[in-house]
């Protein structure tokens, strides 16, 4: 059975406690490919993108400590998502990852609020797209082939449930349940990384 995201404490909230290895692993395994994809999409070599990914992840992980523990969980989540989004946008805007500069300085730069330019706005958009794609890839590997196809054909490729059911060889009702399962999981993963609101 699929996990029900809403009944467990938010992943991001659990990360704050450094003891939650699983939560951190899950966050970084989702976030890392997003940063990497965004960096390479914006012209960075994969080598640089890899270093940059580690820098950004490191910065975000350190920023977690500075969050005021008394705030409410929901605000923590929004806050961390903002930090994560800023870090990646700043990093990609700056180009090649920093070499000689001290880590403190790098962190300060990555966590500052990005200027609102055409580039950063494009990056916001791309960030959200990468989040969706990474999440989709994850769900893709969690569900069966027919479940995925039910979702993909009717949601992305605009097939009617009836056509999709015929192609997959299942009943129309299964198309509805299958794609709902995929969407439910997809939304949970996307929300771990991006609240859908920008800094503005």
């Amino acid at each position, binding site marked *: 059975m*699929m996990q029900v995201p809403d009944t467990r404490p938010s992943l991001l909230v659990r990360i704050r406690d450094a003891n939650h290895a699983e939560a951190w692993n899950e966050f*970084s395994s989702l976030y890392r490919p997003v940063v990497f994809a965004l960096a390479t999409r914006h012209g960075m070599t994969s080598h640089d993108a890899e270093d940059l990914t580690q820098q*950004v992840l490191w910065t975000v992980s350190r920023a977690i400590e500075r969050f005021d523990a008394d705030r409410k969980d929901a605000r923590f989540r929004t806050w961390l998502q903002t930090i994560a989004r800023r870090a990646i946008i700043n990093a990609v805007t700056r180009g090649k990852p920093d*070499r000689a500069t001290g880590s403190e300085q790098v962190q300060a730069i990555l966590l500052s609020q990005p200027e609102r330019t055409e580039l950063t706005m494009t990056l916001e958009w791309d960030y959200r797209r990468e989040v969706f794609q990474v999440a989709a890839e994850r769900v893709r590997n969690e569900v069966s082939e027919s479940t995925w196809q039910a979702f993909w054909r009717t949601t992305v490729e605009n097939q009617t449930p009836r056509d999709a059911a015929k192609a997959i060889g299942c009943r129309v009702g299964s198309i509805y349940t299958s794609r709902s399962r995929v969407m439910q999981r997809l939304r949970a993963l996307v929300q771990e990384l991006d609240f859908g609101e920008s800094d503005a």
Partner: protein
Amino acid sequence: MKQTHCLQEQIDSFLDGTLPEESLHEFEAHLESCSVCETALERRVADERFWNDTKRFLSDAPTEIKTRSGNEDAIASLQRIVSPTDDPEMIGRFAGYEVRAIVGVGGMGMVLKALDVALDRYVAIKVLHPLYATHSAARKRFEREAQAAAAVLHDNVIAIYGVDTWNGTPYLVMPYIKGESLQQRIDRQAPLEVEQTIEIAMQIARGLAAAHDQGLIHRDIKPANILMPSGVSRVIVTDFGLARASDDVSLTHSGMLAGTPQYMSPEQAMGLHLDYRSDLFSLGAVMFAMLTGRPPFRAESPYGVMRKITDARQRSVMEINASAPHWLSDLIDRLLEKSPDRRFESAHDVADHLEDCLAHLRQPATVVLPKLKPQRSKISNKLVYSVSAVVLLCVAMIAALALSERLTPTGNRRHEIASPSDVPVPLDGMSLWTIDDSALTEVEAEIRQLRRDLTNPNILSTEEILP
């Protein structure tokens, strides 16, 4: 259709996973005939904006997302790539080899034990997981590993017999090594004997030196990647999967560092530029583990480990293992220095030093214990030069002052000034590397005091200097 009325609770229980399997069929049948419930279900899983975003953002997704097959277990995926064999002992045939067993399954591939029929010897075949065989970045990385390891010919580095592709699946062939990994040895025997620890570390250092000479940084030195063939005392460094040429700009490791970073260097943890000395840090961590049974930096989460690697000082080995001599403890601390500048200069240096240590252990009467080289100062090069410039300036001023005072017939000075000979002043940049921090701190304090004195008109006025 037995039931046509809508059941909100069924949607709830379907979504939280509590709908019994036998009711699922009924629920699906109901959805087919009831658009109200179907729409309600859609809205419950996501709002309209999210459905639209999903369509929009996934429409230009790479084809991998659309076509990649789901989870497969190793046996199933292996069965897809091997062909049948007549031999009941064998799992199947892969390229020219008879596959006997799956030795290990990793993130991106698996290792098979197979018989090379032509040469009648066992080999280990590392196969890129079929899941990744179509993934160009993964393929490239796999090929790079093969090239990297193949370029290093050394007793302490795994040999590569060949690299090829079979039915579209890339693989590389290595010697099959019967034995255990250093991790298994540690789990079984830790703490290891001092002599054994040094012997193993020396061989790892030799293997690293050979890789470094080829311009390769291993980047993933840890006990699990060190093989200990049974029956011999040889140690073999394996898994160049993360190795990177120092000038390489084309390689992708998007999945790197996803695991436990316990043996990672601080510069690696922070994603900063790294060089060969990063491997030396990892070697220090491996030595620590051999003598204590655990890595130097431990925490519940990888994040906690990274934090400790960059911020915390490790406990000294001799505190944990009383049989470890202080010089060995110091050596490990040297390798685990946060700043690469303060570690050894090269893997060759480490290996030579360890060899001398070993000679001393075996013949304490005739071979003296090698001394660790003095360390580079903690402060940066630039600072050293600017400090030395200030020092020289001060020396000149003091000298001038002393001279002028000596020329003054009546010494009415109110303040004692340290004579130049009291201050350990280095005369050139290089010799600065040989002084330790405490001396430098003293010098700095002296300089600050002198500068204050020299600029303070109450202490030293021009009238007093010039008669």
